[in-house]
C-alpha cells in the first residue's frame, strides 16, 4: 500500500488553501505541507467568467502563493477516515496527516431536467467548464444563449456572454433576480439594467426540458409551455458544498462541513474552510454556508493559524457581493431583507441610484448600494466593527458619506494604522 505521512494536508488547493498555507508558514517554518488538487494547475475560480468575457486571456492567478507546498495535481480525494487521520486518493494512494484542511469547495447543482446532458448544455464553475464552452463556441455557430438561474453565477456568466455579443435569455424560478443577495428594489434596478442591454429576463418560470436537433441543443421548453430557441445553455441554479465524498468520514455534516470558531470540524485536527465549510453568520449567528472569495480567505487564514497551533477565532461569515451589468454596479452586504420589525431600514431611491441601510440595535448590519459604490468598503468596515452609529445614522443616506463622517478620534486612530515600513 502506497502511503505517506505529512504534517499538514490541504485537500483542495484554491483560495482558502492558499491563505491557510500562508498562515501555517507564519507560525511553522518547517512542517511539510502537502496539497491535493483536482485541477491541473493553479488558477482563480471566479475568473472563468472574465476569461469567457475576454477581459483577460485566462483564469490565471498572479498573487503570491506559498511556494514550499508540494501539490499533487490532478488527484482527487475520495474518502477520509477522520479518526485514523488518513485521506484516500483516486490514485489509490493513502496520505496520513497530523492536521488536515478540507477545502474542496462547491459543486454545481444540476436540476433533473430532461435533456440536461445534451451537447450544448453546460455548468460553469471550473476552468474545465470554460474549456468546454470555448470548444463548443469554436465548433458551432452560437447566437442564442439561455442561462437557467438568475443567481450570482448566472449573472456573472450573463455579463460575460453580453461582452461577446451573444443574445442572452435569463430564466429564473423566483419572482426576481438575485433573490438572496438583493432586496425587491435592488432586483428591480438589476432587471432594468439587464433589459437596457438587451437581455430577455423571464421570471417565475423554469426549463421543463431541453430539446435537441441532431443530438445538439436546439432550444428549451419552459414550464409555462413556451418554447425558447437556444444554441447553448448554462445551468446556473446554484452550488452546494462538495461533501458527498465525506458521507462515511465521521465528520459532522450539515449543508456543509460543520466547523467551530477555529474552523475546526467535529474531529480534532481536521479543519475546513471556504465554500465547503458551514460557519456561523456574522449577524444572526445561525449556521450558514457563505460561498464567497473574501470569506474563503478569512476562513483559510483562521484555519491555518489554528492548524499550526496559534489560537485565532473566526468572527463569522458576512455575505458580500458585487455585480455589474450594463455599467450599473450593485453591491449587497449582510442582512438586506430584514426578517422582522426589530430592524430599522433607511433607504433612498433615485432613477439610477439606490441606497439602503439595515440597522439593528443601533448598529449597521447590512446595506444595498446601486450606482455609487465607491464607499462600500467603509460600510463593510462599520458592520464588521459593530460600530455604534449614534448620530452617524442620519448621515448614511448622504452620498458624500465618507471617513469624515466618523468621530474625529476614531478616524485619526484608523488612518494611523500600521502602514508602509521603509
Amino acid at each position, binding site marked *: 500500500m502506497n502511503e505517506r505521512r505529512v504534517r499538514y494536508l490541504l485537500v483542495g488547493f484554491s483560495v482558502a488553501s492558499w491563505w491557510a498555507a500562508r498562515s501555517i508558514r507564519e507560525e511553522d517554518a518547517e512542517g511539510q505541507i502537502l496539497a491535493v488538487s483536482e485541477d491541473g494547475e493553479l488558477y482563480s475560480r471566479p475568473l472563468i467568467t472574465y476569461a469567457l468575457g475576454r477581459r483577460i486571456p485566462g483564469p490565471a492567478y498572479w498573487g503570491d502563493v506559498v511556494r514550499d507546498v508540494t501539490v499533487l495535481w490532478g488527484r482527487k480525494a475520495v474518502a477520509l477516515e477522520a479518526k485514523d487521520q488518513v485521506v484516500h486518493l483516486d490514485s489509490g494512494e493513502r496520505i496520513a496527516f497530523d492536521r488536515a484542511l478540507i477545502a474542496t469547495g462547491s459543486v454545481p447543482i444540476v436540476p433533473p431536467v430532461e435533456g440536461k446532458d445534451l451537447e450544448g448544455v453546460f455548468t460553469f464553475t471550473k476552468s474545465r467548464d470554460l474549456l468546454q464552452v470555448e470548444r463548443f463556441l469554436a465548433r458551432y455557430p452560437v447566437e442564442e444563449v439561455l442561462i437557467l438561474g438568475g443567481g450570482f453565477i448566472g449573472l456573472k456568466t450573463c455579463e460575460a456572454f453580453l461582452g461577446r455579443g451573444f443574445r442572452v435569455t435569463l430564466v429564473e424560478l423566483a419572482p426576481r433576480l438575485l433573490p438572496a443577495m438583493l432586496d425587491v428594489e435592488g432586483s428591480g434596478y438589476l432587471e432594468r439594467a439587464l433589459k437596457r442591454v438587451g437581455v430577455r429576463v423571464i421570471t417565475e418560470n423554469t426549463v421543463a426540458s431541453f430539446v435537441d436537433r441532431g443530438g445538439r441543443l436546439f432550444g428549451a421548453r419552459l414550464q409555462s409551455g413556451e418554447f425558447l430557441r437556444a444554441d447553448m445553455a448554462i445551468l446556473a441554479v446554484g452550488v452546494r458544498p462538495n461533501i458527498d465524498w465525506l458521507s462515511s468520514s465521521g465528520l459532522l455534516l450539515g449543508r456543509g462541513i460543520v466547523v467551530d470558531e477555529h474552523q475546526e470540524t467535529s474531529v480534532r485536527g481536521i479543519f475546513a474552510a471556504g465554500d465547503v465549510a458551514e460557519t456561523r453568520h456574522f449577524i444572526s449567528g445561525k449556521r450558514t454556508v457563505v460561498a464567497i472569495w473574501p470569506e474563503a480567505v478569512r476562513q483559510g487564514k483562521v484555519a491555518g493559524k489554528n492548524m499550526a497551533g496559534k489560537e485565532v477565532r473566526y468572527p463569522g461569515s458576512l455575505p458580500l457581493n458585487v455585480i455589474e451589468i450594463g455599467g450599473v454596479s450593485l453591491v449587497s452586504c449582510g442582512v438586506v431583507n430584514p426578517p422582522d420589525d426589530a430592524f430599522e431600514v433607511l433607504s433612498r431611491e433615485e432613477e439610477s441610484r439606490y441606497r439602503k441601510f439595515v440597522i439593528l440595535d443601533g448598529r449597521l448590519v447590512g446595506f444595498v448600494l446601486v450606482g455609487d459604490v*465607491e464607499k462600500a468598503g467603509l460600510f463593510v468596515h462599520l458592520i464588521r466593527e459593530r460600530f455604534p452609529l449614534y448620530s452617524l445614522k442620519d448621515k448614511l443616506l448622504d452620498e458624500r458619506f465618507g471617513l469624515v463622517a466618523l468621530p474625529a478620534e476614531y478616524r485619526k486612530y484608523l488612518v494611523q494604522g500600521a502602514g*508602509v515600513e521603509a
Partner: protein
Amino acid sequence: MRIRIHEEFCIGCRLCEIMCVVRHSQSGKILKAFREEHPRPLPKVRVEEEGYTSFALQCRHCEEAPCIENCMTGAMHREEGVVLCDEEKCVGCLMCVMSCPFGVIRRGSGRKVVSKCDLCGGKGVPFCVEYCPNEALTYE
C-alpha cells in the same frame, strides 16, 4: 516611510488632488494635463470635507491589506511595502473597492479599478505631501 494626515492643518484647498493628477499625467505638466490629456487621470488622493473639518485621504498601504487578500486575480500586490495594482491583470471586479475600509480605491478609466495611491513610485516625497502648503500631509 508613510504619509501622515494632520487634519488640524488642512485648509481644504485641494492642491494635493491637483498635483496628484499632474504627477500621474503623461506630460507631468499642469497646463497640458488639464487642457489636453483625455481621459485625465483621477486624483488618487481626495479631500473629504464636512463643515469646518477637512483632510486629504489616500491609500494607507495597510500592513494586512484586505484589498490584496480579496483580489481574485492577484493584480493588487505589494512591492517594497507599497500596495499597487497591476493594470494589466485587473479585471475591474470591484472586490478591492468593497474591501477598503477607507473607501479610497476608485474605478479608473475604462472598466479597470486601478485608481489608487502608488506613493508616487516610492521614490522621494509624494507630490500631495510636497505641494501641501500647510503641512497637513507629511511623509515620515
